[in-house]
């Protein structure tokens, strides 16, 4: 076999294809970060991975870079692959797949203690697809699976209800134990797609909480999603100033990880209420394969 020349088509085919095939696009919003057992979780939190996830690294480099990640992957029992093309994100995702939380929801006893309002007829998790702020389709039913998912419809020009709700949530989420926090997703759907472009939405959410998912679509698509939840369509009222105000549902809708229960949180839900309910909504933690 002749010497392989760097940058040649052979070089590309030999090394490029497996790399592309094994490459996961780095999407922090969608990554199933693992719920690690407490000692490992504590060390993972302390480990500085700044900048690492965007770079492709081999598993060898991965091990050197972060002993904790290597340990996490071993923990998942999936570290027998030969050293080759792997992404840090991919490896973490693998570990996540093996030890992600069980899809248990809250027990009947936990449900009775909730301060939110359990809907009398639990709706199934609605199946709608909108576009996230990175421009990728986001299928709600799939993304909500195994997570406590908090869904809210609002708009960024809102001075009163929307930022209060979301800021309260963010403040409480930041105080939760890391393992629990990893099992909760917040999804904000704009009811004002004309003004809330993907960029505007991302900037606003980043200022509130960078981990929040932002979704948009046409007003018809948003209304269709709301209809699945029994929420009336968005109202848009023109004002003499040339501005307009947007009428939208005021409650945060929570889905349990098992997808069986929907709980509504009206405006006025206090931070203490969220701190009380979120662990109950998440249900018991069960890690391991």
């Amino acid at each position, binding site marked *: 076999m002749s010497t392989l020349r760097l940058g040649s088509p052979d070089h590309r085919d030999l090394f490029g294809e497996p790399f592309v095939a094994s490459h996961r696009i780095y999407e922090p919003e969608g990554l199933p970060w693992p719920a690690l057992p407490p000692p490992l979780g504590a060390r993972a939190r302390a480990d500085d991975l700044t900048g690492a996830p965007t770079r492709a690294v081999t598993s060898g480099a991965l091990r050197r870079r972060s002993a904790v990640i290597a340990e996490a992957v071993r923990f998942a029992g999936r570290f027998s692959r030969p050293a080759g093309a792997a992404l840090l994100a991919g490896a973490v995702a693998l570990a996540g797949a093996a030890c992600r939380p069980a899809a248990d929801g809250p027990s009947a006893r936990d449900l009775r203690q909730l301060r939110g309002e359990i809907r009398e007829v639990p709706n199934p998790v609605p199946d709608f697809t909108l576009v996230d702020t990175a421009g990728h389709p986001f299928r709600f039913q799939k993304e909500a699976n195994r997570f406590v998912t908090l869904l809210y419809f609002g708009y*960024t*020009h*809102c*001075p*009163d*209800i929307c*930022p*209060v709700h*979301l*800021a*309260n949530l*963010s*403040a409480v989420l930041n105080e939760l134990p890391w393992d629990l926090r990893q099992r909760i997703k917040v999804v904000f759907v704009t009811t004002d797609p004309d003004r809330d472009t993907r960029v505007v939405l991302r*900037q*606003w959410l980043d*200022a*509130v909480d960078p981990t929040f998912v932002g979704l948009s679509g046409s007003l018809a698509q948003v209304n269709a999603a709301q209809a699945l939840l029994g*929420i*009336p369509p968005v*109202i848009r*009222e023109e*004002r003499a100033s040339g501005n307009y*105000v*947007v*009428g*939208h*549902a*005021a*409650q945060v809708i929570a889905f349990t990880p098992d997808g069986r229960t929907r709980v509504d949180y*009206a*405006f*006025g839900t*206090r*931070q203490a209420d969220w701190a009380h309910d979120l662990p109950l909504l998440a249900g018991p933690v069960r890690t391991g394969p």
Partner: protein
Amino acid sequence: MSPGRRRAIRYRTELTAGVVLGVAAALAGCGQAPSSSDSSTSVSIGPLTILDSCIAEPIGANPAALYFSVMNRGPVDDALVGVVVESVDRADIHRTVEHAGIAWMEPAPDVTIPAGRSVRFGPGAYHVMLQTSSSRLRRGMHVGVHLRFQRAGTIQVGTPVVAYADLDRLLGRANASGGSGSR
């Protein structure tokens, strides 16, 4: 017991019989803050007392919200007819209303402050929407707020800018939904 709470109790003993219970919630508001940066004082003009004013720091270039409570200890109704806020281009009085599961803002050009009662401006109730061309309102600032009343005249209230997440602590029970206290 915080200094704010002590002050709240002292105020409560001064209240006349006609004042609604909602006042107690309003009194436990922004003034309860332990740090000096987000504390506000109450100011009076004639029979009116303005309590617990605070501005929620805008997110980016979006509108901010001004909250406060007005207590009317006089025998006649008054009305808030105008708001001017320093370093803010536009201030509009709004009321958040909820009907059939949908919430939206309604303009409230004048808000009656009934005799012997208090009106709360708080999340989910009345608020003053503030619009600035750039983000000039930053947490930790104190801003001059001028409230113009039909009878009592104009009063200036030094108002702290706070984070939205702090309203829960600062406005206490007033943060809960349930309308505007009176009206």
